[in-house]
């Protein structure tokens, strides 16, 4: 399936979870939050939340700002 992560289109095997995606990008130990199709997916749901074709995923963190 194909999904979009932070504006980039990527191909993934089926049954891929949000947690798999976090691990793919080595973000497991970093403060980050995930939104799919404009809805927040809380960290407690990352392991069971399966991605589906066409999902638009945002993975965000905190950066310097005013």
């Amino acid at each position, binding site marked *: 399936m194909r999904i979009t992560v932070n504006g980039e289109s990527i191909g993934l095997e089926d049954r891929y979870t949000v947690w798999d995606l976090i691990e793919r*990008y080595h973000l497991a130990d970093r403060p980050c*939050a995930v939104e799919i199709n404009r809805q927040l997916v809380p960290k407690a749901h990352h392991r069971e939340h399966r991605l589906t074709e066409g999902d638009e995923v945002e*993975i*965000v963190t*905190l950066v*310097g700002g*005013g």
Partner: protein
Amino acid sequence: MTPQLQVSSDSLLTLGGHTFASRLIVGTGKYESYEIMQEALDASGAEVVTVAVRRERLLDKSGRSLFDFIDTDRYTILPNTAGCFTADDAVRVARLGREILQQMANPGQDWVKLEVLGDPQTLLPDPMGTLEACQTLVGDGFRVLCYSTDDPVMAVRLRDAGATSVMPAGSPIGSGRGIANPAAIAILLEMLKDPARGGEPEYPVIVDAGVGAPSDVTTAMELGADGVLLNTGIAHARDPVQMAKAMKAACEAGYLGFRAGRIPKRMYATASSPWAGLISPIPGE
């Protein structure tokens, strides 16, 4: 001319359920390096620092993170919704920021600095979008610190919508133009804080944005603001660490000055030394 605001007996700042000794809130953006930021934050004496929510850079795994340089046991993190131009986007960003701060167990997880912008050039807030987002976020359990214009009526509307604090801009973000309209800030403070005007003396008002010089911070505090939020004025100063110290001193000076109660302005002089006992003649007498 300046309205006389009631002075609180408590010198601590209570903001959104948190209590702080420092009345300066500083941003963490635009620093030349994380090291300089870290030193400047320390020198500012701030206990609250603002951060922004942005896409994770997925290809730069070795990159250093902001939180390698911010002690989250020391600072309460205030996430912002900077860069959002619609109420919906600001609400999304606020929720994402909260999700991250919950993971970090930082006390800032219950609040947000709400910015809904109306124009990319001036970065002026969109009052309608700000009000709409404020209502949604208050309903969602957030304590909302609302970046606003210095319009006193808008400030009242945001307060009535449940904003924990209204944060009027002194002048446009990053402009360094200081408190462009002190009279507007003074009236806004009166309407939010004077019981005779339906206000509440303890309602916190933070002047946010536009600070260029320490005197700008002092001006805001002398007017009766509860605190000042700034970023660029420190981060882009020639020596950010020295400027952070100056801003800290300026904030304390302005606050003490407000509490002490300044003298009214007069057209003419009033002599500080007595007329009585002069050995020389006074012209015209």
